[in-house]
Each structure stands twice: as structure tokens, then as C-alpha cells.
């Protein structure tokens, strides 16, 4: 029996269910009598509906109802009821609330019919008249209107220090550049969908694609007036989300609305086109100014960002703070403002803020290195921050130096000729670029419950999610190791609002947050078991303390003398217990809060560019990541690999193009919205730099969902410069920009 699991490359416990199709997703729950809803989207960006004619649709036999703002029932009235755990300040979008159009392709009707095909057809027969108002969707044209957004929970507003303006003016070396990036959409493989199963007694089981079942449950109960006993939200499997499922998406509202009004079980799935009609990574414009001594020592950093938000909410993310954190500098000026546009509210997308902020900062650092004529790594080491100057705190751990060193070694960075266009093979220009990355190691409060039964099987649960990240697996490992059980004897449950309280899965905090709760609840069980074991007549552990035993191989064993042991099953039997059940809550301690807690990375890339045609290939990427203790190198590596691929997309491909005449996103399908395909992805190596970090949280793990993407776009942009001598500062770097 092997019961040491943490740090082992254990395969996903849900892997078999996923590859055999046994894992069911939100749109795969079928019951007799299920009816289907299809969403009709607005054709204009701003204005109001003057007429909505549903008669033709309703005439079709089998069409049950067309829900619009005209017949939507009276629901909760206050903005608060529509808010959620992740909502930024403002007035959340309410589907079918009124005839106002707030953004192009917003949902304006739900057609419900006996079959999906019929609903689809009927949806094409809904005739809508609009009165158009002038809209604004172009960030670059509206930058003048930028204002300070109301602060958002967990997003510290940027704070300046020293006098950056003066220091910049006095600096011998000065660099000032602008960077911009377009809207990106998350585009997980699985489109958003909800199946509401209505029980005889009117209770609803809501199978929803979400990153937070309790967040959705609270929202639905607040909006529709259900009690939590009457509405349960389930989301056992999620086909990717990347942040798109942090907030309730409108199809869950519409599905519950229809189930409630029609007293039927209902499914609403979004089309791929509709995956471009809610949250997104905001378009952004940034200016970075660096003042430095001739040797590259930073004397002033100014980082200004203007991003987009909707007319109804103040979305903000941590874009510029990184510039006050990553390098030592006494004169730092940071600002992040937003412009209201006629688009849906942006939202968190994998490493929100850091992907944009580090793109600008790490490109600017590369430009500075070139300007002062030193190696980009040397520049970073010269300005290495030993303390967090934003917060005035020490780091719990920071092995960024080792990331630079090990990444550079693996990549062969020493062989780089720093001169642009100096490395070529025929008409292929080769470029090597690097960048650093940083992401917060959040830890918040979560609860967990555990039940150990007399047969030695353990079930642990918490209402978190596994969006493909490996939560099921890691939590199983933690629990199994805590009690010294084989993986097969442990089951972890998640994705059910009736389980113990958990925040949404996001921010790379699930491993630490839910993991700490799992650890805490297992500690309680250990204590109980140990007491039972000691009470056994003539117990070999009678004189031992809990601190002096280990839980391994299904036994409680004395540290000093492994022959002195009691099996868990024995302990339970002697105690006459059929089950031990415990609950625990765990959150950050004041000791943890004394430290700044961040994961770091260094990314190295090689691009090959056709000198004539401008086509860019990312041939090699080395990502070196320091993220505390690696709980499972296999799932961890997958996270970083996927994030690097996504970073290639950000650098070279992804762009939700808005036609500003219509205020409409036109690349709303996966043929026009490019993400990397296999042929775009070549060698990727992931290195984990070990960090022994007792201070960060009880698990010593920093979370890995996001750090892998940070810095990738900058590393590629820097490699493109090295290859071609051209700085392309607006993403994505498409071949036309190189011609």
C-alpha cells in the first residue's frame, strides 16, 4: 500500500470517467419531458426594442413560450439581488429586464419548445424592431473619458510612491512606450449550458456549467425568491472555463426562469457565437515610462493603464501594481482607470490584469535592456526586489532568481547573440526573448467535511469546482496522505451547492484554500482516530502523543518505532463507531498576512520568422515556475503547458474584433477567433523551482492555474524584436505588422 501522495505525479482520479464519456456535463442530463430553450440575441449595440413580435414563433405546434421583457415575471428589484461573489461594483445585467439594449448580442428573448431544433427554428421567427442610439465601443477613441473605477474586492488600488515624474525627468536613460491589446474571449471547449430538472414538488436541480455552485445558488435564490432547500446547483464536471464561469452566466437565469414559469424541466445551451456575448478580457491601452541610470538601475517607473468596462459595472483588475512589485524602485507612479463602453462588463480571464500589465512592463524592460546594452536577465537581477515595496512586507518566498537561472540554462540563453537579426538560417530569422512573471498566491476561507467509515473509506467534500485543473485529484491526494490511505479509498466530492461552503474556483486559490480546509478537516479526524487508538486495551500507542505518530499504510504508527501501530479500521472497531464525521473551516492566519505571497516565473521563447512573409512560429518555450510546493507534478505541468499555449494565443492570435460601426464583435466563432492549434505548438518545457514555504499557507503550495500564462506574450514579443529588430507593441503580433 502506498499512502504518500503529495508531490507525486498521480493521474487524474476523474480521468477515466472523462475519456470514457461517463463524466456528464451540464447539457447532458436528460429526463423525459425535457424542453429546450434557445436564446435570441440583440442585433444592435445600443437603444431599445420598439416591437417584439413572437406570434409567428408561437404559432408553431410544440413551441411553448417565448420569454421577453414584455412577459417576464416580476422578480427581485434591487441590484443587490443580482450581484454575486465576483461582481464588480455597479448594477449587474438583468436578462429580459426591460427593452433597453446595452450591448450588441445581449439576450433579448428565450424561445422554449419541445425539441431543440424547433426552438432553434422558432427563434429565427421572432421579429424585433429597434430604435438605435449612438454607441461607443472604441477604447482608443474614448480614452479621454477614463475615470477611476470604484474599487473591487481583492483588487488593491494602485499606490504610487516617491516622485516618479521628477526622477524620470532627471534620469539619464529614459524610455517611454505605449502598448495595447484587444478584447479576448475565454472560449472554453464546452459552451455554457444549464439543465434544470424540476421535481414533482417544484424543487429545482440546476445542472450548470459554473466555477461556483454556491455563487450561482445564491444568485438564483436572491433573484427568483427560492429557498436554498428548493434549489440546488450542481456542476460536477466543467469543460474548461478560464474565468468565464466565475459569475452566473445568463443562460442559467433563463433556464430557471423557464422552468419556474412553465413548470417543466428545461435546458438552455449557448451557441459558440453566444460565447462572445458576456464576459471577456478587457481591451487595454498602457503607457510605461522607465527612467534608469546608464547601468540600468531603475530610478523611476510610471505605469498607466486605461481599460474598458461596461456602462453598468466598474470592472477593474490588477494591471499596474506589478510594476511597483517586481523591481526595486523608490519612485513609482501607477494608475489604472477605465472607460465605459457599450459592451458587456469584462471579467477575470486567466491571470486577469497580470497578462496585460506584465506584457507592457516586461516588454519595456526588454527595451531598456537593449537601450543600455545589457542582457535582459542581468537588468532584472540588477533591479531585483528583495521586499514587496508596494506593501512594505517581506516575501514568504521568492525563487525568481532561480527561475531566471534554471530557465536560462535549460534554454541555452548564454548562446544568444544580443544583436537583433543576428541569428538566422537562410531567410528564417531566429529570435530569443525572455520575460518574468508574477501572480498572487491568494488564500481565502473555505470549509470542508469528511466522513471516515468503518471499512476505512474516506469521503471528503467541499462545494468548489474542478474546471479541468485537477481539483478532484489534488484534494484526494491531500486527504489520502493526511490519513495514510490509498488513493482508491478516498473520494472527493465537489460541484454541489449542498456541500460545505467554498468560494468560486478562481484566482489560483483553490489548491491553497480548499486544500487547507481539507487538511484541517482531516486533522480533526486524525485526532479522533488517535484518541480511539489510544483507548484500545493495551494499545501500542498508549503512551504516545499525536505529534509523535504518522498516518501511513492505513495505520497510525509511532514515529520512533514503526512496529507500534494501530490500523484505522481497528481503531474504529474498538471505538464501536460506524463512521467519524467532521467539519472544518480554514482561512488565512494573521501570521500569513505578515508576508507578501506570490508565485513567480521566467519564460524563454524562440521564434522563427520568415523574413519575407512575416509568418511567426514559436519553436521553443521554457517556463520556469516557482510556486511553492508542487502538490502533483503531472497536473501542475498540464496547467503550465496549457497556460503557455494560451499565452502563445495572446501573443500571436487572439483578438475579438469589434466593428465599431455596429458596435459588434465580428470574430464570434472559432474559425475567425483564432487560438493556437497543434501545429502552432512546438517544444514546451516546464521547470518547477522548488520553494520550501511554511509561511504562505498551511499547505506551502501557491497555486498554478494562472502563473504559467503571465509573461508569455512579452517573452514572444521580445523574441520577435530580437529576430526582426521591430517592436510590435500592439497585440496580437500578426504577420501583417511585420511586413
Amino acid at each position, binding site marked *: 500500500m502506498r499512502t504518500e501522495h503529495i508531490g507525486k505525479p498521480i493521474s487524474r482520479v476523474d480521468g477515466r470517467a472523462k475519456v470514457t464519456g461517463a463524466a456528464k456535463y451540464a447539457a447532458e442530463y436528460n429526463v423525459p419531458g425535457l424542453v429546450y430553450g434557445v436564446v435570441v440575441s440583440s442585433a444592435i449595440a445600443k437603444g431599445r426594442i420598439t416591437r417584439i413580435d413572437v406570434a409567428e414563433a408561437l404559432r408553431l405546434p410544440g413551441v411553448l413560450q417565448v420569454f421577453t421583457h414584455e412577459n417576464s415575471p416580476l422578480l427581485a428589484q434591487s441590484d443587490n439581488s443580482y450581484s454575486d461573489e465576483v461582481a464588480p461594483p455597479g448594477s449587474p445585467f438583468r436578462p429580459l429586464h426591460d427593452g433597453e439594449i446595452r450591448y450588441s448580442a445581449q439576450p433579448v428573448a428565450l424561445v422554449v419548445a419541445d425539441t431543440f431544433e424547433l426552438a432553434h427554428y422558432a427563434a429565427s421567427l421572432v421579429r424585433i424592431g429597434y430604435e438605435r442610439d449612438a454607441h461607443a465601443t472604441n477604447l482608443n477613441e474614448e480614452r479621454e473619458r477614463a475615470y477611476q473605477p470604484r474599487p473591487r474586492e481583492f483588487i488593491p488600488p494602485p499606490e504610487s510612491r516617491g516622485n516618479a515624474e521628477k526622477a524620470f525627468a532627471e534620469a539619464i536613460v529614459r524610455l517611454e512606450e505605449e502598448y495595447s491589446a484587444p478584447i479576448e474571449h475565454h472560449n472554453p471547449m464546452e459552451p455554457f449550458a444549464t439543465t434544470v430538472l424540476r421535481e414533482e414538488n417544484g424543487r429545482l436541480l440546476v445542472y450548470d456549467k459554473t466555477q461556483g455552485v454556491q455563487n450561482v445558488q445564491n444568485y438564483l435564490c436572491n433573484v427568483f425568491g427560492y429557498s436554498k432547500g428548493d434549489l440546488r446547483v450542481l456542476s460536477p464536471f466543467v469543460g474548461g472555463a478560464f474565468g468565464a464561469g466565475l459569475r452566473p452566466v445568463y443562460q442559467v437565469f433563463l433556464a430557471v426562469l423557464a422552468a419556474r414559469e412553465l413548470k417543466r424541466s428545461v435546458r438552455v445551451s449557448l451557441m459558440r457565437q453566444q460565447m462572445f456575448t458576456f464576459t471577456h478580457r478587457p481591451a487595454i491601452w498602457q503607457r510605461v515610462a522607465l527612467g534608469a541610470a546608464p547601468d540600468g538601475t531603475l530610478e523611476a517607473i510610471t505605469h498607466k493603464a486605461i481599460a474598458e468596462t461596461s456602462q453598468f459595472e466598474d470592472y477593474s483588475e490588477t494591471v499596474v501594481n506589478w510594476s511597483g512589485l517586481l523591481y526595486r524602485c523608490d519612485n513609482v507612479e501607477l494608475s489604472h482607470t477605465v472607460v465605459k463602453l457599450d459592451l458587456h462588463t469584462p471579467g477575470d480571464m486567466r491571470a486577469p490584469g497580470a497578462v496585460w500589465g506584465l506584457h507592457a512592463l516586461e516588454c519595456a524592460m526588454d527595451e531598456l535592456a537593449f537601450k543600455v546594452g545589457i542582457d535582459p536577465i542581468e537588468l532584472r537581477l540588477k533591479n531585483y526586489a528583495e521586499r514587496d515595496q508596494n506593501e512594505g512586507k517581506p516575501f514568504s518566498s521568492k525563487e525568481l532568481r532561480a527561475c531566471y537561472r534554471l530557465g536560462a540554462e535549460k534554454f541555452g540563453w548564454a548562446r544568444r547573440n544580443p544583436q537583433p537579426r543576428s541569428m538566422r538560417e537562410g531567410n528564417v530569422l531566429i529570435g530569443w526573448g525572455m520575460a518574468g512573471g508574477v501572480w498572487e498566491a491568494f488564500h481565502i476561507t473555505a470549509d470542508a467535511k469528511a466522513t471516515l467509515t468503518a471499512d476505512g473509506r474516506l469521503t471528503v467534500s467541499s462545494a468548489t469546482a474542478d474546471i479541468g485543473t485537477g481539483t478532484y485529484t489534488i484534494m484526494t491526494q491531500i486527504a489520502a496522505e493526511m490519513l495514510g490511505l490509498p488513493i482508491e479509498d478516498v473520494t472527493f466530492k465537489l460541484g454541489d451547492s449542498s456541500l460545505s461552503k467554498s468560494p468560486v474556483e478562481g484566482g489560483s486559490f483553490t489548491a491553497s484554500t480548499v486544500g487547507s480546509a481539507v487538511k484541517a478537516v482531516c486533522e480533526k479526524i486524525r485526532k479522533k482516530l488517535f484518541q480511539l487508538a489510544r483507548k484500545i486495551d493495551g494499545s501500542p500507542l498508549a503512551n504516545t502523543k499525536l505529534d509523535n505518530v504518522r498516518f501511513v499504510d492505513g495505520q497510525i504508527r509511532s514515529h520512533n518505532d514503526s512496529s507500534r501501530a494501530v490500523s484505522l479500521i481497528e481503531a474504529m472497531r474498538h471505538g464501536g463507531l460506524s463512521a467519524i464525521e467532521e467539519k472544518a473551516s480554514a482561512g488565512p492566519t494573521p501570521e500569513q498576512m505578515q508576508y507578501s505571497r506570490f508565485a513567480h516565473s521566467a519564460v524563454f521563447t524562440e521564434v522563427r520568422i520568415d523574413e519575407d512573409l512575416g509568418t511567426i512560429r514559436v519553436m521553443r518555450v521554457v517556463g520556469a515556475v516557482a510556486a511553492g510546493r508542487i502538490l502533483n507534478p503531472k497536473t501542475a505541468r498540464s496547467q503550465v503547458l496549457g497556460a503557455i499555449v494560451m499565452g502563445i494565443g495572446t501573443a500571436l492570435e487572439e483578438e475579438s474584433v469589434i466593428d465599431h460601426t455596429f458596435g459588434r464583435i465580428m470574430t464570434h466563432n472559432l474559425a*475567425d477567433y483564432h487560438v493556437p492549434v497543434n501545429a502552432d505548438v512546438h517544444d514546451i518545457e516546464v521547470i518547477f523551482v522548488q520553494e520550501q514555504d511554511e509561511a504562505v499557507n498551511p499547505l506551502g503550495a501557491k497555486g498554478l492555474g494562472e502563473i504559467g500564462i503571465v509573461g508569455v506574450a512579452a517573452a514572444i514579443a521580445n523574441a520577435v524584436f530580437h529576430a526582426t529588430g521591430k517592436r510590435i507593441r500592439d497585440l496580437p503580433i*500578426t504577420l501583417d505588422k511585420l511586413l
Partner: protein
Amino acid sequence: MNSFSYTRADDVATALREVAADGAAKFIAGGTNLIDLMKENVERPSRLIDITRLTLGGIRPRSDGGLRLGALATNTDVAYHKEIERRYPLLSKAILAGASPQLRNMATVGGNLLQRTRCCYFYDTATPCNKRTPGVGCSAIAGFNRAHAILGTSAACIASHPSDMCVALAALEAVVRVTGSVGERVVPFAAFHRLPGDTPNIDTNLQADEIITGVDLPARGFAEHHAYLKIRDRASYAFALVSVAAALEMDGNTITEARLALGGVAHKPWRDPQTETMLHGQSATRENFKRVAEALLRDAKGFGRNRFKIELAKLAIVRALSQASFKEAHS
């Protein structure tokens, strides 16, 4: 998607009768383009006539030394056919540069010829488009036109033809065989697709009551000197920004015949035989390639976001000709 009826035709005569009887009926072959357009409410056929049971598959030799591709031969069948690979590698490479294996397994020769533009406004019924609804205006001219045409455009439409296979067929001077109520006729490839003019709603010269039965390849396949170069925004699974099919006959380093077809730049695979003759009797040098590239693009016109295609097309022509002029061409 609208509600439609579905029938499966067992012979060409029945298929033609059914399509003639219902002005809003459509043939369906692989369905890889038509179904997408139906889901978007762009195509709203009253009836689908499934032609996949007709005996229009297969690839057979012709008495003149060429090959006949059945209209229902799949893109995969054609691309991996031994004779095509050996004698018409340009065609094989062009097909394999397109779509994905799954799509090519479904897509047919006939359907590929008739696939419609990928203009994003054409696909989105919330925006005006002359090709969808004549007279309402073209959103692309002042809009997002990165993928659009630079040659042969009109004030009504600047859409580009998305096919890779057709670019090779244009270079090979294939012939399209069609059958209609009045019998069979053959259409030279250059006369099959149309420029938009003021009827951008009409893509080709195929009549509504006609069916494509096959495509004939002439005997000459330019196997020794050819190249298919496709430039796109990612390495695979993307439509061409610009593509070039180059086919040469050479005597030593002297070009005796040159064929150049361009994809992604016009409403049809673009040929300019007059300009191609500039290369006849010339040696295969970069300078000569540049001259013909300049000449081919002399009338090109950009519309904002697609302006880069003019320069890109020239560079691509030079590259494709260089590749083709090597023996044992590799693209």
C-alpha cells in the same frame, strides 16, 4: 435554422427534377458549409436534396490522358489518390493545406467548388450584406476586411473565395462538368466562378437547376515544377490570407510555360494568363519573378485592414515561383 424537408435522390435525373420543382431547394453533399450557413440563418432552404447516394464518386482516367474527379469524391479521396499524388501533386498539396482531416473526410469536390465566402458580415444576419440581401450595402468595405479581396472587387462586394483546392484547379485549367434539365455542358474553370460586379449574390455560373457531376483534369499536371504556398494567421486550420498555386514547365533554367493562380485575393481563384506569359522564355530569377508579381498586382486595391495583402501577395508569388522552379519542388 429554418424548418425544411429532406429527400435522398437515387439518380441524377431525380435530383434534377426535385431541384427544378422547388426554387428554394438545395443539394447537400458533405454538408460542411451548407449546414453551418443554415445554422446561421444565412441559407434557408425549403428542402435538402441529399445527393451523396448518386454515383458521382470516384476518380477515373480519361481517354485524353487526364483524370476525372467525381463530384462526390471527398477532398481526402482526391488528396491521397495515388495518381493525384504522382501526377498532380499541386492539387494534393492545395487540398491538404485546407480545413482539417475531419472536414476533408466529409467535404466533396462539388461542395468545395461551391463553398461560400467567409466574410464575417455574410455570416452574421445582424449586419447588412449585399451578397445575402442585394441592395442593402456591403459592411466589409469600411469594416473588418482583413480577409477580403484586393483584385476584381466591386462597389457592391469585396468578398474573397476561400477555397484552396480551387486555386490549384484554376492553375491546372480543370474543366467543370455540369448537368441540367437541358443536358450536359462543360465549363472551363476560369469561367465557373464569377466576380461580384453588381450581382454579388451570384457566386458562380452554375444554374439553379444544374448539378456538378465532376471535374476533369487535363493530362498535364506540372508535377516537376509546382508549388502551393498558403499564408495564414496560424500554421493550420485557417483560411488563406493569400495563397499561390504556381506551375511551371521548364527547359533547364528557362521557363517555357507559367501558370499562377492566387487564392484569398479575389471573389474567385485569380488568374491573369496574359501577365503569366511575361515569364515565358525567361530564366528563373528572383528579378523576373518580382516583375511578374508586380504586374499581377498592378490593379490591386486595398480597403484598410486588407491593404497588406497587396505586398504579401507579391512576396508570396516570388516565393512560390522560386520553390516551383526547383526540380522536385518542395513547398
